[in-house]
């Protein structure tokens, strides 16, 4: 290493041989390499699934029911019912998680005074966010499926939705809480100073202001829920048939993730192919949801 000369002329030129500059460059390149490595798995997965599953896209895939392995037709059918199933189950999950989560977030951000109770809830939310999804499944299995509390049905789409809502809930609470906390206190005081009630202030001023981040949280929660498999194996199980009436949500229901799980392990290539196609669709849905959340968070509010 060259010894630093005393710089009598106050020269400000960039000196590449200075050890701090070498170090700086080196670290910069290392970090670039690492970040490239970190997105390689994502790219590989996307490309692989695209090649394996994308090639089988056709109308039948979206319309037909899947065929059990070894059926006479030789074809594995489609994943129409699984797509619908995933949509229904995540819709049920958000019907449960969004009101409870947004309500909880509003309580934490607007009403709680930072006492024991709210600390306890925040802590609980963080713990819930870290609960393995299979536990959520087993929990609903024990509480809902085994006991048949919901109009006597055991495995059902509703139970699946309940399991997924447990996974969505912490995400929705947190983003609501944090979104509301970002709203400037001046706005709140402005509204309250005009004689508005807490309710009016929250509904008309703070919630609309935090809408973007809440919507983002909900969509990301949905994306997470849509891809879960373990909780559904214990709750919604699987079905080979299209749903035909509203009552079908109280029976076993198929979903993309469980279809992948079931069919990818079959020793029949037709079923394996179908699993790839389902993977493609599932990744596509998750991707779309993520893009949606980006759009939400970029949407300009006043």
């Amino acid at each position, binding site marked *: 290493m060259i010894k630093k000369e005393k710089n009598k002329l106050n020269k400000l030129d960039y000196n590449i041989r200075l050890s701090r500059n070498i170090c700086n460059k080196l670290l910069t390149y290392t970090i670039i390499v690492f970040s490239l490595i970190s997105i390689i798995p994502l790219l590989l997965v996307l490309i692989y699934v695209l090649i394996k599953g994308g090639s089988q896209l056709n109308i039948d895939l979206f319309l037909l029911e899947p065929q059990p392995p070894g059926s006479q037709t030789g074809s594995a059918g489609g994943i129409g019912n699984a797509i619908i199933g995933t949509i229904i189950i995540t819709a049920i999950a958000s019907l449960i998680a969004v009101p409870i989560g947004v309500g909880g977030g509003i309580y934490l951000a607007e009403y709680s005074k930072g006492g024991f109770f709210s600390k306890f809830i925040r802590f609980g939310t963080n713990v819930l966010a870290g609960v393995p999804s299979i536990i959520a499944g087993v929990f609903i299995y024990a509480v809902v499926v085994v006991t048949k509390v919901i109009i006597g049905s055991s495995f059902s789409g509703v139970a699946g939705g309940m399991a997924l809502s447990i996974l969505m809930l912490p995400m929705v609470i947190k983003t609501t809480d944090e979104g509301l906390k970002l709203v*400037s206190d*001046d706005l709140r005081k*402005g509204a*309250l*100073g*005009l*004689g*508005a*009630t807490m309710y009016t202030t929250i509904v008309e001023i703070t919630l609309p202001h935090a809408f973007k981040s809440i919507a983002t949280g909900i969509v990301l929660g949905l994306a997470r829920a849509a891809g879960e498999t373990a909780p559904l194996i214990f709750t919604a199980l699987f079905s080979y048939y299209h749903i035909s009436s509203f009552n079908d949500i109280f029976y076993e229901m198929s979903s993309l993730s469980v279809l992948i799980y079931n069919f990818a392990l079959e020793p029949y290539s037709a079923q394996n192919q179908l699993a790839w196609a389902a993977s493609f669709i599932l990744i596509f849905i998750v991707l779309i949801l993520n893009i949606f959340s980006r759009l939400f968070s970029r949407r300009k509010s006043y």
Partner: protein
Amino acid sequence: MTNKTKISLENVSISYGESEAVKNVYLKIPAGKVTAFIGPSGCGKSTILRSINRMNDLIEKCSLKGRVLYEGQDLYSPNIDPIEVRRKIGMVFQQPNPFPKSIYENIAFGARVNGYKGNMDELVERALRKAAVWDECKDKLKESGCSLSGGQQQRLCIARTIAIEPDVILMDEPCSALDPISTLKIEETMHQLKKSYTIVIVTHNMQQALRVSDITAFYNAEVASGKSGGKIGYLVESNDTEKLFNNPDQKETKDYISGKFG
């Protein structure tokens, strides 16, 4: 003109948690006049102002002793609804805080929460005119309130407060974030407003107090005797503005005023 008292503070002391912020304030605020609060920073002007429409309720640990009477009713007696208090006694803050809604909606919001049933367009125009921003806003009522300049925003906030048709308007350093021209406009606005409202304004600007107020209350702070070593504010004197600035009763007042001017 008879000097009817609108608000009177009787031996009011306010504390944040353990530490007392202002103590033993006796003050009468006459109806239909502008009363200015002056005094060094931290002497409790905002604290007293907020106590008049119970905005201190929003600050945890803030407690009040003594009585704040509005037309003879004790604002802190248990049967009083703070929401009703704030509808009668509106507040304009130091930082302009328009809602992120259209200019029209900013005004309509306050009117609606107060159950205004009449013609909203008319009310919006009337409020904006009274606050002297109508000319600047009339062509962009649908645009966001945040798209206005700081001074216009502050006048919008004043208009918003006027729209709830309060009886008293409290203003906490409404011009501190504004340029001299906007400041003058707001002062003109105040001259208009005092025909129909009682106004209380906190200001650090002596000339402003002289220009706009009829009564001036001077607060000061002293080092607390207790362990904390913090300062406690108190009211030194309140008088007609003319008298307080030219011939104050207290030497303290004189020192403060001459210190600032000389």
